[in-house]
């Protein structure tokens, strides 16, 4: 694997920044372009890059398939759970205005949480799909 040295070093350098960028896109999506869907895809691409350069076995150690598979469902649950929170607070399903005293602050909080749920599901789904395709034996 000596001839992959350049790739390994550069990707080791870049992967943290890709993840940081994904988090920026995730949490800055309210003010600029971005949001859960884009952030999830970018986060997944960081893991996919790791898997391509360092091999699938190492990638499976970093992101254990058992955990990632559960995260796919967890994102949807976070989203739906936020909807039910509104229901418990006496408002409609997915009405985030009820999450806080101030409706606008509640909206902001609700959007933050559900975008996080979206990002989790998208990233975990893409990583799972990549693991399954790349791990399929010929």
């Amino acid at each position, binding site marked *: 694997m000596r001839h992959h040295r350049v790739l390994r070093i550069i990707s080791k350098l870049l992967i943290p920044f890709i993840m940081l960028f994904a988090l920026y896109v995730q949490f800055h999506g309210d003010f600029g372009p971005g949001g859960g869907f884009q952030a999830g895809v970018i986060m997944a691409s960081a893991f996919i890059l790791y898997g391509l350069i360092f091999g699938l076995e190492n990638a499976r150690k970093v992101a254990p398939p058992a955990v990632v598979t559960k995260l*796919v469902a967890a994102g949807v649950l976070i989203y739906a759970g936020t909807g039910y929170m509104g229901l418990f607070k006496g408002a409609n399903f997915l009405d985030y205005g009820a999450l806080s005293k101030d409706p606008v602050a509640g909206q902001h909080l609700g959007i933050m949480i559900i975008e996080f749920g979206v990002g989790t599901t998208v990233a975990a789904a893409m990583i*799972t799909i990549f693991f399954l395709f790349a791990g399929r034996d010929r």
Partner: protein
Amino acid sequence: MIITLIDIALLTFMGATALAILRLRSLFAVVMLSGIYSLLAASMFVALDAVDVAFTEAAVGAGISTVLMIAVLALTGERERAPSHTMWLPMAVVVLTGAALIYATFDMPAFGAANAPVNLHVAPRYLNESFAEVGLPNVVTSVLASYRGYDTLGEVTVIFTAAVAVMLLIGGRKGDDAGIKNEPADDAVDDADSDGNGDTA
């Protein structure tokens, strides 16, 4: 004027790339060109003011879907066989459909018209009042997550379902139709039984 030129140039590139995808036989080249096609589409979306969409298209089309397609090519082979029979019927269907659609475009509002019906219904309300109601500058995010939260919940569920379906289809070992787990299914069952009776090894 410059915007129009960029528009026309990008669209022409997209058309050329799509024709090349149709004509090429090497599937590897086809997949690479489809990545370029996605990148051109993303540039086009920027020119049309849809920055969020462009962002997604660039990350998904040029990144993830190209990687997935190449992973599949490694499993299924890289050459496409030449078509065995003439393609007059599909060509006729496609030409007729395209002609009908182009005829229909003459009733569409002009490109960029501010008074087109699409731009008059709910869009002004979102643009004028979403900042007071939701408090976010990015209208796309507030519509996506707040005004149309149900829609997005459905879309996330579709992604979840697709991931589960892919797991069910190719999550097991090759030739193992019953297994849906990643670990060897038969051995796992044996181990579970033997654990009850004491260690056999």
